[in-house]
């Protein structure tokens, strides 16, 4: 969040807002300290029920979406790193995406990084009914957990993970609420390795190849 706050400081006078949303079942208890430490002036929200991930079909964090002045999505769900802290793990350079984001803030809908409706639909309209059921199972699990039934929540978290195996949110949030090995017979790293390793853990942002060339000059 300090990284996004610094970027916000640079760009906020360009009719631009950053909404940062914590996907944390534990709410303020878990997410609060990070927000307090970052002293944000961007809009920092807490999403105990993973509502944003549910509405936007997000499967991991961090995920970024660009929304234009008319409230339309112009670039959908992609991994969005503000710095290279996790580069050793992910193999992903943060600069190309940040440069694309800055380009959009400057040029708006004329930016080359804005996607056309066909590209957007392809990326967003996931009408697989399993995903909606998975999301309901996850929601039920969260509600049972919060109502003091952590053991009863586990089968519903497992069902969500089974119905939407692409969702790391369902895995990692559930692991964090209990003990991954005891409750799910696995660990985060076991799951990462089972799915091809950390270098494919995030799909890279879908950016044109040439934007990755001139990253050096833009690095902070």
């Amino acid at each position, binding site marked *: 969040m300090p990284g996004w706050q610094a970027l916000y400081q640079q760009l906020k006078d360009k009719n631009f807002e950053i909404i940062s949303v914590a996907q944390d079942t534990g709410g303020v208890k878990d997410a609060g300290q990070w927000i307090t430490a970052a002293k944000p002036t961007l809009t920092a929200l807490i999403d105990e029920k993973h509502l*944003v991930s549910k509405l936007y079909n997000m499967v991991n964090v961090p995920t970024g979406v660009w929304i234009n*002045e008319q409230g339309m999505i112009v670039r959908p769900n992609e991994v969005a790193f503000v710095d290279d802290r996790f580069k050793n793990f992910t193999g992903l350079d943060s600069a190309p995406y940040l440069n694309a984001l800055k380009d959009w803030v400057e040029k708006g809908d004329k930016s080359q990084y804005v996607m056309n409706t066909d590209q957007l639909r392809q990326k967003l309209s996931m009408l697989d009914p399993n995903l909606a059921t998975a999301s309901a199972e996850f929601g039920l699990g969260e509600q*049972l957990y919060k109502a003091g039934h952590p053991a009863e929540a586990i089968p519903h978290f497992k069902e969500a993970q089974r119905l939407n195996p692409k969702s790391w949110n369902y895995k990692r949030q559930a692991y964090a609420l209990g003990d991954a090995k005891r409750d799910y017979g696995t660990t985060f790293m076991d799951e990462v390795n089972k799915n091809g390793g950390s270098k494919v853990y995030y799909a890279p942002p879908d950016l044109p190849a040439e934007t990755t060339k001139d990253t050096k000059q833009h690095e902070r």
Partner: protein
Amino acid sequence: MMPARLPVVIIALGLMSTALAAASEIRATVIYDDIATEISPADQQQDQLWITTADLTRATRFELKPQGVCRQELCFPIPKSRKQEFLRKSSGKEWFNLLAFAQLVHQPVAHDEALAVWYFGLRSDQRQVLASLQAPDFSLPDIDGKMHSLSDFRGKKVFLVTWASW
């Protein structure tokens, strides 16, 4: 003899009324739009959850109108030929089958049988918003509990980004 037996009768009557109360009072929790409401359904099975029309409105903010099941401008007509799947009258109350309605509006339902909790997910009309490329609106609190909506920022470019502590 009689005075000695009286307490036994009283205890037996007491037990009976407790048992009757337990049988008549079926409890369930309906979670709709992520808000939990305790209700007293008439019946709950895999495909039927009969709740009073009063509980329908309390738990879901939908209400029964001549044109269908409505919430503000949103209305879902009930197919005339299938009315009995959705509505029935008994013991002076009108009952509504919330699971038949969920099926009608393509709404996923998750159920915990042991705890009698029913979780209703996003209806297809809510899921379609994304396909229209309109950014789905939401209202969430900041760290001080103050609510903010995405739509508050209409007219600005918004970069929406998630993170988590885990």
